[in-house]
């Protein structure tokens, strides 16, 4: 009986397969779960990975990084290089040519005007842009003709692929967003919640912080794709729930970022309904240190801004002591197992750019204590240090996640051994990474002394990522709390070195400068305390085919190729 059923199934599969291959939407429905709910579908207004990745199904960049970190043309006909004449000999400009015949989902053609507009949108002086560092050094973007766009840089740009590439640089439709420039950007709810795109899917219903319904884009450039007619993109819950929904109950087909303790994940995979897939990229779990004063006694609009330096953490010795007290090996063992490595740098990969310094790895409680003594922090009767009537007490916030709360508890204990009192706080991930300027609990506002999360960069060149820490790029009220310099780090020497990186073409030399920049932020100034180089772990159902885990770009980069295994 079983054999007969199997045979019949096989016959049916063979009979249906040719049709299925030829047809858009033939594979029905796919369910995707992101345990951090999506709040907005405009990546220029949100630094949250979940928002960027959800948007990558709808709007697309000119070029994407594939799973090997190689830039491949997406909306562009080819990747411009010096050899094919796309990049100027003096490296000061890059000319992209769009693939002809690409239509927006509303049926109008994609033109170079849209690309120019995207640049204007993100660099508008009156508005904040979450991806401003992608356009670092860009002087002008001009349309040469309907399909050609020329990006000119202030100086030679050895890696001119920052603008308009990767999940953080998709093209917006001018017709839809042209009234949304500058300060008006966050008010264009319809556009931000349902951008018109060139990607394989279009939004049919968007409920912020809950669920997105999508349907196949009727004007998608490949008539046979996407294979799925509709998508339910569910957000919210927690990593364990998302993992269970795919690996154990099979309600969902794809779950993103399963940040779970190793034995928990192994237990789920044992149920046999799906696979956990992982790959190392540039994702680093880190503690960000606030260099500005987050005290609630300051007036709103001045908290966590550069007007008030942090009364405790401005001292390098305190920051160094905090780092020395942490045992990164143990953190990896508790939280990530095989899917993590201890990290001392925020650029763990590719090898040319990864700092090899490992001096943060050894835990040194005695050394940290000595350093704090030297800095003038004396232990009080309850074991907590103090200086000038101020207790060495820190508020340590992160998103709600079992692994992160375990990390908090561990680090709190180590810090208590060096006389630092820690107050822990956890915030719902959807809010923490939501980027809502009205909420006091976002990681950009940073109303805490230290905070922990993970961050990575698109592609294989860290220049844009390191540019995030340029002075002036910090989130502040004037930018609608958008910005990537979360620590409010400001060092002219760093900025000068960044400019040098931007001018340098030699690959080896770029590696040296990038390593030095990353070291300035980490093992030298201890502004960022890297903890774990995290492998990305996601899961897909056994019946979902075509998934290629990509750590260099959006995980949903090839969602158009996904299909149902019958």
């Amino acid at each position, binding site marked *: 009986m079983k054999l007969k059923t199997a045979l019949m199934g096989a016959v049916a599969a063979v009979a249906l397969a040719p049709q299925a291959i030829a047809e858009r939407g033939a594979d029905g429905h796919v369910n995707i779960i992101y345990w951090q709910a999506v709040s907005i579908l405009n990546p220029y207004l949100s630094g949250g990975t979940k928002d960027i990745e959800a948007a990558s199904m709808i709007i697309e960049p000119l070029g994407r990084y594939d799973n090997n970190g190689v830039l491949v043309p997406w909306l562009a006909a080819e990747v411009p290089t010096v050899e094919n004449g796309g990049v100027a000999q003096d490296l000061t400009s890059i000319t992209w040519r769009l693939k002809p015949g690409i239509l927006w989902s509303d049926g109008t053609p994609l033109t170079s005007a849209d690309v120019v507009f995207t640049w204007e949108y993100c660099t508008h002086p009156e508005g904040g842009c979450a991806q401003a560092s992608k356009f670092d050094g860009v002087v002008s973007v001009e349309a040469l003709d309907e399909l050609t766009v020329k990006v000119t840089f202030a100086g030679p740009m050895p890696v001119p692929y920052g603008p308009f590439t990767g999940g953080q640089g998709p093209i917006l439709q001018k017709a839809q967003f042209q009234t949304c420039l500058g300060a008006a950007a966050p008010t264009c709810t319809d556009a931000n919640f349902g951008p018109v795109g060139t990607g394989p899917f279009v939004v049919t219903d968007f409920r912020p912080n809950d669920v997105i319904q999508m349907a196949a884009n009727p004007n998608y450039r490949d008539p046979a794709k996407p294979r799925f007619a509709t998508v339910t993109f569910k957000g919210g819950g927690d990593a364990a729930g998302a993992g269970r929904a795919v690996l154990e109950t099979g309600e969902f087909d794809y779950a993103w970022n399963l940040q779970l303790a190793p034995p928990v994940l192994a237990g789920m995979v044992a149920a046999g309904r799906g696979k956990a897939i992982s790959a190392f990229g540039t994702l680093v779990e880190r503690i960000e240190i606030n260099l500005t004063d987050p005290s609630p006694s300051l007036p709103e609009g001045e908290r966590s801004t550069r007007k008030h330096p942090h009364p405790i953490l401005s001292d390098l010795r305190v920051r160094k002591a905090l780092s020395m007290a942490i045992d990164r090996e143990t953190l990896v063992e508790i939280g990530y197992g095989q899917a993590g490595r201890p990290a001392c740098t925020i650029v763990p990969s590719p090898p040319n750019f990864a700092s090899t310094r490992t001096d943060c790895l050894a835990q040194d409680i005695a050394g940290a204590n000595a350093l704090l003594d030297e800095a003038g922090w004396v232990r009080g009767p309850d074991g907590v240090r103090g200086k000038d009537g101020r207790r060495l007490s820190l508020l340590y916030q992160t998103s709600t996640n079992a692994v992160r709360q375990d990390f908090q508890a561990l680090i709190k*204990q180590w810090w208590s051994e060096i006389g630092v009192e820690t*107050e822990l706080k*956890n915030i719902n991930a959807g809010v923490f990474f939501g980027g809502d300027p009205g909420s006091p609990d976002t990681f950009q506002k940073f109303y805490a002394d230290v905070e922990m999360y993970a961050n990575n960069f698109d592609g294989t060149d860290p220049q844009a990522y390191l540019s995030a820490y340029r002075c002036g790029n910090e989130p502040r009220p004037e930018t609608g709390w958008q910005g990537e310099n979360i620590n409010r780090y400001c060092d002219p020497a760093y900025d000068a070195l960044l400019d040098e990186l931007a001018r340098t073409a030699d690959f080896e030399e770029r590696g040296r400068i990038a390593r030095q920049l990353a070291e300035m932020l980490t093992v030298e100034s201890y502004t960022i305390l890297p903890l774990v180089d995290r492998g990305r772990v996601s899961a897909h159902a056994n019946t979902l085919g075509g998934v290629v885990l990509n750590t260099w770009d959006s995980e949903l980069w090839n969602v158009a190729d996904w299909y149902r295994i019958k």
Partner: protein
Amino acid sequence: MTDVLTPPAPEAAPKPPRSPWRDVWDQFRSHRGALAGLVIFTLFLLAAAVGPYIWRVDPTFITIRARNLGPSWTYPLGTDQLGRDMLARMIAGGRISIAVGLTAMALSLVLGTLVGMLAGFFRRLDGPLMRLTDLFLSLPLLPLLLVMVMLFRESLSQRFGPETGIFILIVFAIGITSWMQTARIVRGDVLALKEREFVLAARSIGTPPGRIITRHLLPNVMSPIMVSATLGIANAIITESALSFLGLGFPPDFPTWGRLLFDAVDYIRDYPSRVIWPGVAISLVVLSANYIGDGLRDALDPRIRGR
């Protein structure tokens, strides 16, 4: 049969009269569930009150090498995923959960009695106060609590420290959202009582309202108040656990029973005992408080007493 039923011999005049509380206790004793509940509740109270002095293990101390252990002599209830002692965590959790339950109950009782008494006794206040009660009854509790936690957590923890601050916030939040039942019961009883002859008599000899309330009304509404008090404890413990379970409430390193449950959910399959212990503790305390309330209601009602 207890000796309550035996009518006192009329000739035994020198024997002092039985105190009414003695009758109550005798009746309460006859309610087996209530008695069991009282024993269990007292045990939990004792464990929470003196437990930390007997079991001197820091509930937040992490022993990395002793993770996920089963029960043993060193760790009677095992350890959690960071090697923290579960027994110590259970005791610490009980301390907080029960403290929140008792304090929130006291607050809601005071509020409820005050509002109910005023509404029942002063006709002019009846309308506004009862509409206020209706208003509070119609508020959805959990969303309101979430908003309160978000709005006031920072300023309170700034002023009183993270633990006391959030304790005050949660007790206050639960207290001011659970007084309505008490207020309605008290008002109903007062409305009936104030027309009774002894109150009329007191009024006719010119007793001021304050005196009437404290001398004549309050003692007579004690029994419904005490019953709603026990139910209030149960309610407050459940609300606190729910808040902690949602990851709000106390800071994450603070073991409360709800937080222990929340932390253990990820490990429910591999280490079910970690979910069972706090779950059982919450259920037992809530159930025993309810039984005590049930027994008290019977014992305090003279019409049921002796049946």
